[in-house]
């Protein structure tokens, strides 16, 4: 246990949490609009490979992240077309997206196994980074960490204070009423799905470009599913998504450190712990039925079709 430095642990917590944070906030917006996209894992891994390939070829992680967002959003277009225009079942389509994304990413990434990604520099925030202890934990990270937090704040403010946010929530709450009032349910959902795809893509690229940083098949290892669980945990509230992701990141980092510290617990039990804890958290959150029903967008997962 002596080998674990709490400072490093806390600092790496933010890094470990960022991928699921990005994916979860995107999915939260999608669900707020009343759409359940179970393809987060597929979009993340596609983002991871797109970001990696482009970053390696251009030498620029920034362009890589842009490409990752585009890749994730591109895959989500498939989901949006199928569920919003062809009215396919959202659960089945989301699963298809994940299976498809895993195959696609493996195909794209076949020549890139074993290569190292170009480094993304840290961006210590002037002055704040010099604060003892806190500075090192909070303010000496790469740009994406700050961006992800800004994204949370942005989503929160948009949903709460803007007209677009209000319309988005209305569409997720009761799409028939929103349609009757003249809002374009399908368009709004399409945009939300694209946003969710882009966020998942960014989250995936964060894994392949910063956290690992290299490409291996299936490297997201369920992060997309955990992001989905975090949205439920957060009761569809942006700041709780942040808390959920950081809690989860903390557990992941802790178990990795415990593994490294050579604790007596077998490695396999440590590596299954994040998933078990996710299940536990889901149970605790959903056990209060009335609260869960109150917070979930009422039209979640239902197809919308205008009849006469």
């Amino acid at each position, binding site marked *: 246990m002596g080998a674990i430095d709490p400072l490093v642990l806390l600092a790496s917590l933010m890094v470990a949490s960022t991928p699921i944070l990005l994916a979860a906030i995107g999915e939260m917006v999608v669900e707020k609009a009343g759409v359940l996209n*179970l393809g987060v894992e597929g979009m993340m891994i596609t983002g991871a490979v797109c970001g990696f390939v482009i970053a390696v070829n251009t030498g620029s992680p920034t362009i890589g992240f842009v490409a990752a967002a585009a890749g994730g959003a591109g895959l989500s277009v*498939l989901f949006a077309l*199928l569920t919003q225009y*062809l*009215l*396919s*079942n959202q*659960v*089945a*389509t989301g*699963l*298809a997206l994940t*299976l*498809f*994304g*895993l*195959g*696609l*990413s*493996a*195909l794209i990434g*076949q020549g890139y196994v074993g290569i190292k990604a170009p480094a993304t520099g840290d961006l210590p925030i002037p002055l704040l980074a010099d604060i003892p202890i806190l500075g090192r934990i909070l303010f000496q990270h790469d740009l994406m960490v700050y961006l992800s937090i800004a994204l949370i704040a942005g989503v929160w403010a948009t949903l709460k204070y803007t007209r677009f946010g209000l319309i988005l929530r209305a569409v997720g709450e009761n799409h028939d009423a929103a*349609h009757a009032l003249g809002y*374009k349910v*399908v368009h709004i959902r399409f945009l939300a799905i694209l946003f969710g795809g882009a966020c998942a893509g960014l989250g995936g690229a964060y894994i392949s470009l910063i956290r690992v940083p290299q490409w291996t*098949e299936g490297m997201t*290892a*369920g992060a997309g*599913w*955990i992001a*989905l*669980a975090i949205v*439920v945990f957060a009761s569809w509230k942006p700041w709780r998504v942040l808390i959920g992701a950081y809690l989860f990141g903390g557990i992941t980092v802790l178990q990795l450190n415990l593994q490294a510290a050579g604790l007596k617990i*077998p490695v*396999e*039990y440590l*590596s*299954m712990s994040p*998933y*078990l804890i*996710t*299940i536990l958290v*889901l*149970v605790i959150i*959903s*056990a209060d*039925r009335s609260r*869960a029903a109150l917070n979930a967008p009422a039209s979640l997962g239902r197809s919308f*079709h*205008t*009849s*006469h």
Partner: protein
Amino acid sequence: MIRLEKRPEPSKAWSAAAPVLAVVATMIAGGLLFASLGQDPFVAIRTIFWDPIFGEFAFYYRGQLLVKAGPLILIAIGLSLGFRAGIWNIGAEGQYIVGAIVGAGAGLAFFPSESFLIFPFVILCGAIGGGLWALIPAILKTRFNTNEILVSLMLVYVAEAMLASVSSGLLRNPDGQGFPGSRNFRDFPAAHNDYIIESAGIHWGVLAAFGAVILAYVLLTRHILGFQVRLTGEAPRAARFAGVNPTRLVVFCLVTSGALAGLAGMFEVTGPAGQISIDFNSGYGFTAIIVAFLGRLHPIGILLAGLLMALTYIGGEAAQATLGLPGAAIQLLQGMLLFFLLAVDVFANFRIRFGTREAA
């Protein structure tokens, strides 16, 4: 403008034609994909879909077809029951692994006994292992309202960690010079799932898959329980009104699908795979989801879809060997198939209208 209009009734003709159309569309899109990878699309498609059945080495491949299709069908039959009722078990891969571990473990405990009771016991334990693993999301869903999709999926990762643990620990072959992996079941005839007809690839697991198809067909068309499953999926409130106990139905669907997945894993590990090893599972639990949908959640459909999907596995391997086609391309092809199916599916319930559009 084009718009969709809901049919007064689901079209049976479209429902049946959709998988065929999806397969054709997948071949076209797949051909384009292979062309972009620098392959002759026609050769690639023929290698995957035609040669394994009718080509020069078909005698070898045909046997493989049932070996691959068996577990896919077995798992997909179980999944289809739940999917029909709106209960989404997507963790069949985990149940498959746990069934294999429990079944194999139960058998290996009696090594080197020669009792004929061992194999039936192994089968039973495989089903129980998978069933219990699926019982976890079932209980959490019914007691705590926890989402079964997420829980069953999380349990896949847990099962994989367990598999890693037992293959280098509990079940490791004591005579294996410390290499990970259990004893090979070929050396343990009493628990070995041997071929019944080797040339056709028929082993006990394949027979079990055929049995599951027949039982599921009878259940869904002739039995009140199957009717309740369908009713719950079509109209959950109507099902409640008709006296369906939702808790019992969730448990039934999840445990049945888990048990079938566990059986599939057990038959695989004691047969074709031969031993518990860290990577004996090859994603059947996930591919079976595609099989279930492609088969329209109908037992006969699943039988055909399982054979087709097995064909893409075998053809894919052949294409990998002869054309150097990347394995991931096959995975992509399978994903595409599901996409196209979901896309053409819309026409079963809607028809296309050209002309004036509603102001929306």
